[in-house]
């Protein structure tokens, strides 16, 4: 059921949710968390669909906030969706017009489920310091997506705005790779001397994976680029020979180990809903992610971002760009695919305003971020 409420208030939305539940005959909600999504018109349908899908594993109340500061009059328009075709759970899409756009927290706060965790997700642009932003403050977990936008905050700059509880879907995308590489070293307990990671250009996941490998193994890691999709391979030189995991097509990978036959490994690139489901499984601090960010920053971050080779040192990332692989400023393929999908969706989705400018949403000014986070003080 979808109920439209124009020029409304949070209290009226809360009542509408209760009314719809009562009409359906279900008196209680089984939701275990509130998921707040802050995004723009272009991304909201795609994000909401993934969130509803993730709701099958993690029943949530989903609150989508779309700021429209360009509107002349301030006010709140909402659509309440319960038990519609998109999936289980309840969702509210809220458009915050005019001045109200800067006060999203005031709208969301009364709608949070009592005594359950709050997670905020920015599927596209995200604030530089998520935990200090209006909607980030309400949450114990904050999820950003470096691949969700054309100009993500560089991985090397993430630590500055990091607070415990933050993660990025670029890190989530690494999990199957990390898990398979760990399994490979379970199988062959060898001493790794060097690591090479290949991926398409501007792939935040490959940077995180490379830094994680460099940190855990204590060896230099070379990050080189090719045409993708995503991460295409990891080669580890060990005292017992080379271990490699390569995935040229984004689907099926091959694991090669010394003195062992090559083996196929299903390592498909995952859907947004799957990534979100993994994120919501653990609501505690991802200390490993935090440590990886720390290492990205400690190392010569410029080397990663500017993609210039540096001399290998212990636990240092070396990046070699292959010049014949197209312009370095090329969009990540994933973003392009997503862009196309969004455009397709916009046709079916009456509420989508394809073409809304990305700067529709109030960005958190870096100046507001002057207050240092606890994590900033650490080395």
């Amino acid at each position: 059921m979808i109920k439209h409420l124009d020029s409304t208030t949070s209290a009226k939305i809360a009542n509408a949710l209760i009314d719809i539940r009562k009409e359906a005959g279900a008196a209680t909600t089984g939701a275990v968390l509130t998921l707040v999504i802050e995004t723009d018109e272009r991304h909201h349908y795609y994000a909401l669909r993934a969130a509803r899908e993730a709701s099958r594993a993690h029943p949530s109340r989903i609150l989508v906030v779309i700021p429209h500061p360009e509107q002349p009059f301030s006010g709140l328009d909402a659509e309440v969706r319960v038990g519609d075709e998109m999936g289980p759970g309840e969702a509210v899409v809220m458009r915050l017009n005019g001045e109200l756009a800067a006060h999203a927290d005031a709208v969301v706060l009364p709608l949070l489920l009592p005594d359950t965790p709050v997670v905020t997700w920015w599927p596209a642009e995200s604030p530089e310091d998520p935990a200090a932003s209006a909607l980030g403050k309400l949450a114990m977990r904050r999820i950003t997506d470096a691949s969700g936008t054309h100009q993500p905050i560089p991985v090397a700059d993430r630590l500055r705005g990091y607070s415990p509880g933050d993660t990025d879907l670029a890190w989530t995308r690494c999990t199957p790779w990390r898990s398979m590489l760990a399994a490979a070293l379970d199988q062959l307990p060898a001493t790794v001397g060097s690591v090479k990671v290949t991926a398409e250009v501007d792939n935040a996941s490959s940077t995180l994976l490379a830094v994680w490998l460099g940190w855990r193994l204590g060896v230099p890691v070379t990050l080189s680029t090719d045409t993708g999709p995503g991460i295409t391979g990891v080669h580890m030189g060990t005292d017992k020979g080379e271990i490699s995991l390569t995935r040229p097509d984004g689907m099926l990978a091959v694991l090669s180990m010394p003195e062992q036959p090559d083996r196929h490994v299903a390592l498909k690139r995952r859907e947004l809903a799957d990534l979100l489901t993994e994120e919501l499984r653990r609501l505690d601090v991802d200390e490993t992610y935090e440590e990886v960010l720390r290492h990205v920053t400690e190392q010569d971050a410029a080397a990663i971002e500017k993609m210039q080779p540096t001399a290998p040192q212990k636990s240092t990332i070396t990046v070699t760009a292959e010049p014949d692989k197209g312009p370095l400023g090329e969009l990540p393929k994933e973003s392009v695919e997503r862009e196309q999908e969004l455009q397709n969706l916009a046709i079916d989705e009456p509420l989508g305003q394809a073409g809304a400018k990305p700067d529709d949403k109030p960005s958190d000014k870096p100046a507001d971020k002057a207050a240092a986070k606890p994590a900033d003080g650490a080395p």
Partner: protein
Amino acid sequence: MSPLPKYPKPAVDKGHQGYQLSQAEKTLLSHELAPEGAANPLRDAADRRLPRIAGPCGLVMFGVTGDLSRKKLMPAIYDLANRGLLPPGFALVGFARRDWADQDFAEEVHLAVKEHARTPYREEVWRQLSEGFRFVSGEFGDKQAFMELKDTIDKLDAERGTNGNHAFYLSVPPKFFPGVVEQLHEVGLDQGPEGSWRRVIIEKPFGHDLASARELNAIVDSVFPPKSVFRIDHYLGKETVQNILALRFANEMFEPIWSRDHVDHVQITMAEDIGIGGRAGYYDGIGAARDVIQNHLLQLLALTAMEEPVSFDADAIAAEKTKVLSAIRLPDDLDTYTVRGQYASGWQGGEKVVGYLQEDGISPDSTTDTYAAVKLEVNTRRWAGVPFYLRTGKRLGRRVTEIAVVFKRSPFLPFTPTQTEELGQNALVIRVQPDEGVTVRFGSKVPGTSMEVRDVNMDFAYGEAFTESSPEAYERLILDVLLGDAPLFPRVAEVELGWEVLDPIEEYWDEHGKPEQYTSGTWGPAKADEMLAKDGRSWRRP
């Protein structure tokens, strides 16, 4: 490997981090997966995203054509692969009397997976998995076939890198155990190369009485060391059953009332709505008590009644379960406090069904019980005087398994008897299947101008609140075997204690009377209701 660089940790706000890993878990996560104790630098206890993936290994399945194998085991293996929990190069070898080639076997598994798997079918997962399928045709006592099996396994070690690690799943009737185990020993399959493991998985029934259970254990133990033998009780792999321990020992609000001070009695029910189906050969002569009470229900009783284990590892849990099982006392009056029945024909859920004695392959004078109920007591300080009523049966009202802890009535009620006429006893019900969850039953005021108190239910639906759709029990158990992780498997001592509880009852039944008939689709024979009525209690309608 030089020690990893240590970096000072930032002051992390741990306010939301309620759960701390136990030492055993840390050890498991960081070390146990790596062979020969060399810590894998990519594994870290703090990195909780990395799933436990079994090391390189293969599974050899005897009895691949059986129902269990098609409906549960093969789909579970696919689901594990789909969730990325099987090692690369995992191999599955089928062994049966069919004249199949590897492709025929793969086709059979494919059908089973398509029909019964829990997770969506994905071609690339199937492709990766099916590369490791092999089939060996032969009789269970045929040395030639086992030589061939050995060749197949050796080849897999070379082709797929299973590194000599193999588990043998005996999904066959117990009468074939001696043959299979003996042949495995004969051709040397019970011993792998240095540094590898061999494990054997067996399914119930673990014998039909104490003597036969001991005999069976002796056969398996003669070839495999006890820690390599995994007895599957699939109930213990269910999320809800594992949740009993979480509910009891992770919370403050239940444990203080979990004793004779507040608990009036406990009812453990496992009801099936189906008859014996095509299992006449297996079921006749065994009966409900041996089939279900001896293993599943006593395990549920043990988990409900056991003391807190000192840690969550296999030894500590087994120690507590063994203690409580050894404290079980039978009632003196076995005639009143044990009941057995046989389903008679009736209309079950609108469908006409025949009685047990009319089933194909059942002798008309069979005395096998299809329903059994017993009253047990646990002689410990915590439980003295609290009866545990266990019941199981086929062709009952509906399919349900649950544990109901029924509390005593409030010692004083400041209400008039009419105001609390509809107030029953408080209860906490753990619904094991289906509709997994927990129900708490308590009194509440009926809205209106008068004061009236009535029972209401508060429901916790497991499927909704748990953050991962529950894996099938067999997935968890197969993965645990491949990981060598044993907390969820009953030990020999538990199996034998189960028979010590049941044997006197079966002996009494053999000498006295015969099972009472009950109409299919009802909740069992009248005598079972009388048994509780005698104690001033009644069965919950589950």
